[in-house]
């Protein structure tokens, strides 16, 4: 039995690997069809810039904890960079597909719909990276000596942390989006998530500047591993040893989210009513 499942699993993995380039290509073409939306979305990502203006003004009279003006600039530019590179719209897409029944055509294809969704979302990353490249130059000016450009090990951890953040957010959005099969207000649940994420991920304020009990609690929650941790690693606020440890914690959150996603997806398919038509 286990050999059968093992063989099937291997075959399915090979199938996904063969199909994925085509999915990425379609995602890339689709993204170019929505290029204006992408630019508008980028323009809405102004919160880190607002916070940067606020905190650099505060830091004009002296550093706040470890943060001087340049550190705040580096932190919020890093935040903007990570936010743009890891952003996903899966929760809206999935909620709509489940509620309107348009998930049905995806379910009729011999590949898990989340693979197709992941390719669509990943395909957006290269163009986003090009559009945010000026940010990287400013970041270099603000924190050039802190960036892990000449430390391959730290660079690899930072890249892995950003990739992990993308995957963790994708899976959490998959979980909340899948809830649309059970409740009508899955997007309201996501609004609550966003509210908590804004504070507990370090998006608005670096976690170490929050009351100690909040920053301590944030280390046991997934929010920090979506934004705060990759940013701190990128701009050198984490030592290599600590970053490696945190990367392990991020992997644990990813593994837990993956298990939850698959279990919830299985249950949701039993509830999916394929409405409309």
């Amino acid at each position, binding site marked *: 039995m286990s050999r059968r499942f093992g063989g099937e699993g291997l*075959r399915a993995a090979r199938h996904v690997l063969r199909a994925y380039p*085509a999915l990425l290509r*379609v995602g890339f073409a689709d993204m170019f*069809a929505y290029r204006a939306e992408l630019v508008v979305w980028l323009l809405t990502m102004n919160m880190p810039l607002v916070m940067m203006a606020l905190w650099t003004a505060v830091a004009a009279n002296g550093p706040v904890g470890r943060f001087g003006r340049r550190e705040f600039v580096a932190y919020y530019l890093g935040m903007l960079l990570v936010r743009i590179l890891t952003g996903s719209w899966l929760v809206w897409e999935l909620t709509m597909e489940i509620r309107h029944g348009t998930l049905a055509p995806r379910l*009729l294809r*011999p590949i898990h719909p989340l693979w197709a969704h992941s390719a669509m979302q990943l395909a957006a990353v290269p163009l986003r990276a090009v559009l945010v490249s000026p940010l990287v130059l400013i970041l270099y000016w603000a924190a050039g000596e802190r960036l892990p450009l000449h430390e391959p090990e730290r660079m690899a951890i930072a890249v892995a942390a950003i990739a992990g953040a993308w995957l963790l957010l994708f899976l959490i959005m998959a979980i909340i989006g899948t809830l649309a099969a059970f409740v009508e207000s899955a997007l309201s649940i996501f609004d609550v998530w966003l509210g908590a994420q804004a504070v507990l991920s370090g998006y608005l304020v670096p976690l170490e500047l929050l009351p100690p009990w909040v920053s301590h609690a944030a280390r046991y929650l997934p929010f920090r591993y979506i934004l705060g941790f990759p940013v701190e690693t990128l701009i050198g606020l984490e030592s290599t040893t600590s970053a490696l440890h945190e990367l392990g914690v991020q992997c644990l959150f990813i593994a837990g989210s993956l298990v939850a996603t698959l279990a919830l997806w299985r249950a949701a398919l039993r509830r999916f009513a394929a409405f409309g038509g």
Partner: protein
Amino acid sequence: MIRARELCKTYRVHRRPPGLLAALRSVVRRRYEEVRALVDVSFAIAPGERVGFLGPNGAGKTTALKILSGLLYPTSGSVTVGEFVPQERRSEFLHMITLVMGQKQQLLWDLPPAETFAMNRALFDLPRREADATQKELVDLLEVGPLIGKPTRQLSLGERMKCELVAALLHRPRVLFLDEPTIGLDVSMQARVRDFIRRYNESTGASVLLTSHYMEDVAALCPRVIVIDKGHLIYDGDLRTLARRIRPEKRITMHFSSLPAPGELDRLGSCVARSELQATLAVPAAQVTEAVRAALGRLPISDISVEDPPLEEIMQEFLGGQPANGRVKSA
């Protein structure tokens, strides 16, 4: 090939009256109702058969197709398609079937249909040469060559539906579930799609299950029909047998070169339609030969034809006469 045994599907539906007060009340206390979409439905379909699902709106036809294609789980009962249980969604099963929904599309909205075809080729892991040959064949048959490079959103409904068929058949499925495949199409386009489905069935031996509100689709494509009403299977058998049972008569339509003498028509059968130089009579099937002979002898006939009564009329009478709880009949 396809076997459904005592299939039941019950939906839990939230109900509330209109108005603000009812909306507020539903926040505190929600009322749910159980809707039985399918009740003990059993049938079997052989390889290569073309079967039409008939029934009024909300009868349970689409629910049945969605269960057969694995999109919905039955509340009770069992279903197999080939050697597969659809709800397990095994890859081999998904390679074997297709579901075309007239009101849902799989084509990528902002990209040309050719992109969807390329994506499906990858998703179904089809060898390139084989997939290209199938695509060319389908594109030629449906005459969509000039369309597949235009963004889907710029195609008309009929053009989109033809491209949907190409996308749905690219992997050469052996079972076709077609849910209103001709909805919104004009008459000539409907005829083309029907013709295409028949040719696909004849050339590949695929089984076809079709639901359609256009009785023409069913009459032209499906020798066998399964009639569902309020979730109950009320007829499963030959379409002509059903027609004969409900309306054991033929329709004789006559065109006249001059006005026939008064009273002559009434002697041949009961008149169901009449204009100045045209009349349609309902005549018992056993008396058709005699009636035609008499008409040709006595009336100034310029053209005459004998047909079955329209399927719409037959179904209207059949469904109108069914008891509320439904009753299984078979031919």
